[in-house]
């Protein structure tokens, strides 16, 4: 197992380098440049100075290696400095956002809590809803619960979040006025009242994203359960005289969780990346919103960095999913 993990980590290095290369060059070579964001009223000399200070005049490969160095060497040092109060970085140049002129990682650190609270909660809620629904729908296949679950899943999966989001806003925020339509990022939780306000404003976005994710997870759970319910070992468990609870939850559900856990693990990078569309709909100032904003503003370092972090997370969670698979299923051996 350890050898397998080490080997996978070693393979991840060239993979990530290649991804970083593609991301950096693709974003850099795409149409639109930082120069176009400078107002036309600025005279040529100042414009040249601004561009010089942004460092965009250096050759592409130089900027790539500088970015790589900053990403893997300097930024971690700042992170350690920040955590332990050391001074490893010694004021080295960080990755700076073109538009806000502040370090990209500081912006990400600012935005991350919003994303993690809302999208993370939505994902957790989705899992909590999806697993029981999936298990029960499979156990009572073609019952009305199953039919309803299938219908809701199809709706949740096929209707895009920008549509469900707007529909929910129209119904619950505009007509019924139960919930706010805009998420207030500045809200600080200090007492029960503000905690309630926070929960209150989270309900709509969590519902939209939760429905979408739950639809996917519950379908996987259901089909995996169905596959296992037909297996001979389930009959064995019944013949042993185990209660239905034990048969379904211990024997069938545990075996069915193997693919489901993988799906959940692979979905987790999405929690960090934020739901770009949903964040837009509810004006949540998260990572997704930051990415969209950066794309609009031709803020290349910001786009490159966020995209690359997402790529790293995807590679990491792929590995985690594979390791979980090996832990959950004794038939799979990595060596």
């Amino acid at each position, binding site marked *: 197992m350890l050898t397998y993990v080490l080997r996978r980590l070693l393979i991840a290095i060239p993979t990530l380098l290649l991804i970083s290369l593609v991301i950096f060059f693709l974003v850099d070579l795409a149409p639109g440049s930082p120069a176009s964001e400078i107002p036309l009223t600025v005279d040529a000399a100042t414009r040249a100075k601004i561009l010089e200070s942004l460092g965009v005049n250096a050759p592409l490969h130089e900027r790539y290696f500088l970015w790589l160095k900053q990403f893997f060497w300097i930024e971690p040092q700042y992170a350690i400095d920040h955590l332990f109060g050391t001074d490893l970085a010694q004021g080295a140049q960080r990755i700076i956002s073109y538009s806000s002129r502040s370090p990209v990682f500081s912006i990400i650190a600012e935005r991350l809590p919003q994303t993690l609270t809302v999208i993370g909660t939505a994902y957790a809620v989705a899992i909590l809803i999806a697993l029981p629904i999936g298990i029960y729908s499979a156990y009572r296949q073609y019952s009305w619960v199953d039919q309803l679950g299938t219908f809701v899943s199809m709706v949740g999966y096929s209707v895009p979040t920008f549509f469900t989001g707007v529909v929910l806003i129209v119904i619950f925020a505009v007509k019924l006025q139960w919930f706010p339509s805009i998420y207030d990022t500045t809200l600080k939780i200090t007492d029960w009242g503000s905690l309630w306000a926070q929960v209150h404003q989270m309900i709509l976005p969590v519902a939209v994203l939760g429905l979408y994710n739950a639809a996917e997870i519950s379908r996987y759970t259901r089909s995996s359960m169905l596959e296992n319910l037909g297996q001979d*070992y389930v009959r064995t468990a019944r*013949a*042993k*005289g*185990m*209660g239905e609870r034990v048969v379904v939850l211990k024997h069938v559900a545990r075996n069915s969780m193997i693919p489901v856990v993988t799906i959940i693990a692979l979905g987790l990078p999405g929690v960090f990346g934020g739901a770009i569309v949903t964040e837009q709909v509810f004006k949540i100032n998260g990572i997704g919103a930051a990415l969209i904003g950066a794309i609009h503003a031709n803020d290349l370092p910001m786009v490159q960095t966020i995209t690359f972090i997402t790529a790293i997370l995807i590679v990491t969670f792929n590995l985690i999913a594979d390791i979980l698979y090996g832990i959950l299923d*004794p038939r799979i051996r990595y060596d």
Partner: protein
Amino acid sequence: MLDLARQPLVRVDGLKMHFPIYSGVFRSHTGDVKAVDGVSFDIAQGETLGLVGESGCGKSTVGRALLRLYEPTAGRVIIDGEDVAHLSAEKLRQKRPTMQMVFQDPQASLNPRMTLAGIIGEPLDEHTRLSRAEKTARIYELMDQVGLNRRFANRYPHEFSGGQRQRIGIARALALNPKFIVCDEPIAALDVSIQAQVVNLLEDLQDRLGLTYLFISHDLSMVRHLADRVAVMYLGRIAELSPAKDLYARPLHPYAEALLSAVNEPDPVIAARRKRIILKGDVPSPANPPTGCNFCTRCPQVFELCRQVKPELSEVEPGRFVACHLYDNNKAARSTGGPEATERNQQGAST
């Protein structure tokens, strides 16, 4: 004592197992697959009843319905004094230790995520109040009984060979000291060399623990070796139920005769003389069986009555039960005494 031994442990009475067919847009109930259609037999304490027949004749369904792994459509299954077919769910669960099953596919019938100790020990958790140490001792004892090395206790099923897995299946079935075990083709998935081992193990356990078996198989020579009595099934019904020795020596039902003619004969001299009966046509669909005798479409000795009336299983010779109109005479002779038979003889003589 002798009387007690003759007391049937298992009595099956008119067991029917129909699987509904749903078809059409609205999935309406359009018919039934009559997998088992009125099967009756009993098994004495310590006896082995063989159940043979070709694929799809309902052998395994009988075994499963007997232990109520399926909900039988009709009929009674009395095992050790209780009607299993009509017990409440909780009563049934408590009854399970008395009756166990050894399954056909030893790989699929073991939970891949449980260790051997977990698989054998789980019924002990559910049905007994043994301490941890006692449980471990019992698990080891069971493993010894079926000839599995104690070192294997923490291994998973996929780490074993087919024969070893079947031993695990047997150990699991034995865990709660059952009286009655249904062996559902326990050797069909095994190599020939391993088959003998498993069969010997089953025989050995029967001698030691006084078990009663229903041995379901399509391996006729293995059944001959193992069973005291044999029931031959065809299309959901029993065609013949006879002591093994008599059946193999002189099958009465035309289907039993045809089936047994397919058994390999090791002696080439006898094999050369032997006549193989090859049946023509296919088995009718159990969803739509013939009106008369189920075998009437393929029977070499079919006559008019067979196509109209289903023959009942009745005793035609001491201990031998046959469902065939060819033996209606014998049946009449046995059930109503002499007169009718003599009458016919007289008619025969007068013409």
